[in-house]
């Protein structure tokens, strides 16, 4: 795929690597703090039957906080001043993440098959710009093949929605 959506924007626009790296380190540290709080609630000392449930994760949390503090310091001191990614590239990434989030979020309601048909169709039509015939072929073909391989041959049930119920599958 040769997408060159960032050509006009120029190669210098986008978040700095340093900033993202520092952000990731901070998120790591927050995660560590959550782990410490959770362990504290579960009890981090010794009980009647030995170390209590929070004993081990408490130290894990400490390790996370300490190592991400060091990572943060490294990122700010001598981090990479270059670009993390261009805005155009990030837009590409988001053009996958957002539809996938909708796809995944709709699955409990409309089932995997219908969601997959719409998702593949959207992806091929709007991002790939294929002819409708190709789009329909792949978007319908893949879930049907999946149905026969998973449900019929290997007996692995997949989530179904109202349409499958109506079809009596």
């Amino acid at each position, binding site marked *: 795929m040769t997408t060159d959506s960032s050509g006009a924007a120029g190669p210098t626009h986008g978040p700095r690597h340093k900033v993202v790296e520092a952000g990731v380190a901070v998120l790591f540290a927050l995660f560590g703090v959550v782990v410490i709080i959770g362990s504290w609630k579960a009890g981090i000392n*010794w009980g009647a039957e030995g170390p209590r449930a929070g004993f081990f994760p408490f130290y894990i949390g400490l390790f996370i906080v300490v190592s991400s503090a060091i990572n943060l310091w490294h990122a700010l001191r001598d981090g990479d001043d270059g670009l993390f990614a261009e805005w155009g590239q990030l837009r590409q990434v988001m053009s996958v993440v957002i539809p*996938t989030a909708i796809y995944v979020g709709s699955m409990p309601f409309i089932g995997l098959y219908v969601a997959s048909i719409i*998702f*593949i169709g959207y992806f091929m039509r709007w991002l790939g710009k294929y002819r409708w015939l190709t789009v329909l072929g792949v978007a319908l073909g893949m879930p049907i093949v999946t149905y026969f391989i998973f449900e019929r041959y290997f007996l692995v049930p997949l989530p179904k929605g109202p349409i499958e119920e109506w079809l009596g599958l």
Partner: protein
Amino acid sequence: MEELVNLFHGFAVALQPFNIMVMVLGIVLGVIIGVLPGLGGANGVAILLPLTFSMPPTSAIIMLSCIYWGALFGGAITSILFNIPGEPWSVATTFDGYPMAQQGKAGEALTAAFTSSFVGALFAVIMITLVAPLVASFALQFGPAEKFAVYFLAFCSFVGLSKEPPFKTIAAMMMGFALAAVGLDSITGQLRLTFGFTELLNGFDFLIAVIGLFGIGEILLTMEEGLSFRGGKAKINLRVVMETWKGLPKYWMTSLRSCIIGCWMGITPAGATPASFMSYGIAKRVSKNGKNFGKGEIEGVVAPETAAHAAGTAALLPMLSLGVPGSPTAAVLLGGLLIWGLQPGPMLFVEQKEFVWGLIASMYLGNLFGLIIVLTCVPIFAAILRVPFSIIAPLILVLCAIGAYSVHSSTFDVMLMLGFGVIGYLLKKCNYPLAPLVLAIVLGDKAEEAFRQSLLGSQGSLGIFFSNPLVSTIMVLGLIALFWSAIQEVITRLRGTRTAAA
């Protein structure tokens, strides 16, 4: 001698028609997985794992391990023909493989790559056949302290040997341990770190993490780079294969060295990727053609491929004999064992002889079949890469979703998978290693259990980990691995001052 009898029995198991069919299917799927961007050994096996729930465990592990061999072979195809490493461990193969393809020697490069892969794997399998039963019988005497020491060694080697900054490795690894701790505590039966969310009762399944981190994360990275596939045609005929084979034996020294590097890096959980780079680097320094490396030198294909395949295979040795996987893919296979109701570790060699030796025999056969299949079908596999990414990407995403769902039949897991995917993208971009994270999720509970049981025995004193020669040795090895980069620096500095003084 008993091992030989067991191995022959294993061949009888592996050569059953159903198992041969499963083997071929696994190899073909594996090569496809290895060729496609976004699907790799670890998440490919994770996605297909649910398909094996209804199979007998021996056939299931044969199929899954063959997917792994196939993926190892497949990575070479894309590196050589398209200059796109399908797998991280085939990055080093592009250095000389792609220039060879540009000079019209794609056939030679592919033959050399596949053959070296086979040699590397064969070496590692022979090593497993000889060493694994010994390690297992030795490990039968391990108590909780020794078990923890082995985990300690495994995780320390990650910190010391990986090319990522050590504190990033530690942060990623500890995140894995924390995720493993979520849910029911196996010793006290108490809930922890769930913060009242009922979805978190069972904790985080590492299969979901593998599919998200490696599968979705990889797709996002590929999307960002905006891939364009421009590749040479692949033509292999018998004449080219024979010509190349005639030339290969003169690189036996490179092969042997790469085999040993690969086995070593595979057993210590450094994995196939650093093994391939290290082997390439050393071959470049030692070889008399070293200055031609990077311009299409066949030796530059032999070295990394042999090491990567040897490491990938050797990673199963600690998985089988100790229950400590040497790579993310081995970790997924270990997860499979647990699902089929088998307890990985030394007892496997005593209680599940047929399973273990069937698997080992299938490694010999699987790699042989793999070599034949890839040599004959390269053009077909290369054609897969010409399918545009905007068709492949949604199909892979749907496959990932199906894989994530079918682990526990839970749509919440599918959402988690996407979350892990975004995390995987960010971590990969910020140079955090993903393998220790996954391995920590897999081994977290076991490591914690061993740690707490040892402390119970010693009334909370850490001295238990240095209480006898065996456990102290393993712990000291672990500490050496942990501070390996610092130790190396001191050694080079000492050498520097000595030469300066002289």
